[in-house]
């Protein structure tokens, strides 16, 4: 029997100290999220909003980061998920869990259908078609006032208690925990997914589709699968938005929303999942804190940060951690006798 090679060399060759460090790194965002619940007081809803955007950006990471599908239409699934959750609560039932599942299914199905129509193209053609997709759906949302309320937004949502017990209250505690749990579930799924043979094949398609075809990979089917999964996940973020605010605006379907979530992801760093956490949080916090001085000032700051990140940190703000760790490792080595 030959010596089994390690499937994850980093984990087996890492020193105990760095393993502890990495464990802390993984626990940190969740500890912050749990801690925020107890200290936030009146600004808890900001945390809910940030987690919704994290989930949305993380779903974009699956298509844009891992599979290399450059899309500007991802807001279509976010918005459709939000409207689906909203309409479900108005016309069918107020139960948020069932409404959430409904939204995930609707946006996932929409992802598969629209993906099947456009994924045979690549590059600029594909980009234009995603743009067309989101524009068509936006315009439909605008015109179909009887269904969506048009540019007034969808009003009159009734959101019942979760599991029939936890009411959405004015302080937003239920919404916060609800968003945190949903985010955590999707994170676990994504974490497992990107390390799977399926996830590795997507990463291979991003790097070299010709190579993947030469080993027998059905490239189109793989891309369609992740497009549908990411659409369902974006729809889940949309459902969280609808349930936590009891309102769905037309802007959730807009091209600008696609742009914002892309900026968040690039800012935080693609292909790391946690990049979405950092990107969305920084974006939201910068927006929230600088908008007080001037309504345009925060766009200036975010734009500057994006330029600096793209120019100096290839892997987004997540690279700061890597650079810090390398610095620490050098410091430890020079410290050793």
């Amino acid at each position, binding site marked *: 029997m*030959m010596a*089994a*090679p390690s*499937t994850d*060399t980093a984990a087996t060759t890492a020193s105990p100290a760095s393993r502890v460090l990495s464990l802390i790194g993984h626990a940190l965002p969740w500890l912050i999220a749990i801690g925020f619940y107890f200290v936030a007081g009146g600004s808890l809803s900001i945390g809910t909003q940030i987690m919704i955007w994290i989930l949305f950006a993380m779903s974009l990471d699956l298509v844009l980061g891992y599979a290399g599908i450059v899309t500007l239409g991802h807001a279509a699934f976010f918005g459709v998920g939000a409207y689906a959750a909203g309409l479900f609560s108005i016309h069918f039932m107020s139960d948020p869990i069932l409404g959430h599942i409904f939204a995930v299914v609707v946006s996932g199905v929409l992802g598969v259908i629209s993906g099947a129509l456009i994924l045979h193209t690549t590059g600029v053609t594909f980009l234009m078609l995603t743009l067309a997709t989101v524009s068509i759906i936006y315009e439909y949302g605008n015109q179909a006032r009887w269904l969506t309320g048009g540019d007034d937004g969808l009003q009159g949502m009734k959101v019942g208690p979760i599991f029939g017990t936890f009411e959405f209250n004015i302080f937003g505690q239920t919404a916060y925990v609800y968003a945190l749990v949903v985010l955590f579930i999707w994170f676990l*799924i994504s974490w*497992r*997914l990107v390390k*799977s*043979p*399926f*996830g*590795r*094949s997507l*990463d*291979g398609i991003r*790097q*070299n589709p*010709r*190579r993947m*075809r*030469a*080993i*027998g*990979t*059905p*490239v189109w089917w793989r891309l369609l*699968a992740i497009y549908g999964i990411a659409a369902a996940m974006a729809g889940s973020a949309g459902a969280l938005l609808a349930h936590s605010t009891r309102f769905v605006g037309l802007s959730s379907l807009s091209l600008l929303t696609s742009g914002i979530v892309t900026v968040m992801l690039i800012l935080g760093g693609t292909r790391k999942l946690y990049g979405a956490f950092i990107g969305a949080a920084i974006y939201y916090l910068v927006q929230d804190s600088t908008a007080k001085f001037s309504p345009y000032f925060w766009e200036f700051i975010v734009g500057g940060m994006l330029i600096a990140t793209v120019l100096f940190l290839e892997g987004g703000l997540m690279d700061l951690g890597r650079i810090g760790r390398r610095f620490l490792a050098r410091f430890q080595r020079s410290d050793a006798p």
Partner: protein
Amino acid sequence: MSETSTSALSVRGLNKSFGALVVAQDINIDLAPGARVGLIGPNGAGKTTFVNLLTGFLKPDSGTILLEGAPIQDMKPEMRVRRGLARTHQINTLLREDIVRDNVAIAIAERENYAWRMMRYTPQWRRCSEEAHALLRDMGIADVGDRQVRELPYGQQRLLEIAIALSLKPRVLLLDEPAAGVPAEEAHRIHDVLARLPSDIAILIIEHDMEVIFRFAKEIIVLLQGRVLTRGAPAKIAVDPEVRAVYLGRTVV
């Protein structure tokens, strides 16, 4: 050439033209199981076109391609691979950001139909990694299994190309200039690997290095302007006046 049914690969009357330019004209080729056939011809003779027709990146205008008796000319490239037709590329076509072992393991996962697994995959992926490691050891590059492909010397990248194709356990293997661009001091490693390829795989090799092709191939097919000019044992091809004329009086051996 008589028993089509036992051929690993059988090409019948293959034609392809781009407008007025004929790139493949009535090509007939048979590879018996374990065959070692060399494909030579001057630049522009249609060698790479022929490989693209076999692998499915080009559609033939007419003709049939039988892989172990089954027609594959209408199949997509990835389906032909799944049926047992693998190739290496003239220019390295690798996952440069991945480590060497994963390049092979991903191909094995695809072969074993593990590549759709999203949630439960740990033992399967470990098996893929172990098999990849064993294959790399056979090829003499297990020591760089944990290195990123882009850090690898060119010659070892060529070996990895072959390793990936072999990991698919093909019935027919197309080697498109396996030693192209490899510095002389590393070339012997490629030659050793070629000599030790499994004897049950039918192999078609395209190569400009005549030394390699005359040592490796039991039969040589000479292609010129999309058609088969002549074919035969290496000793016969080496002295063929027509072949010599094609290569402009250059000594073939």
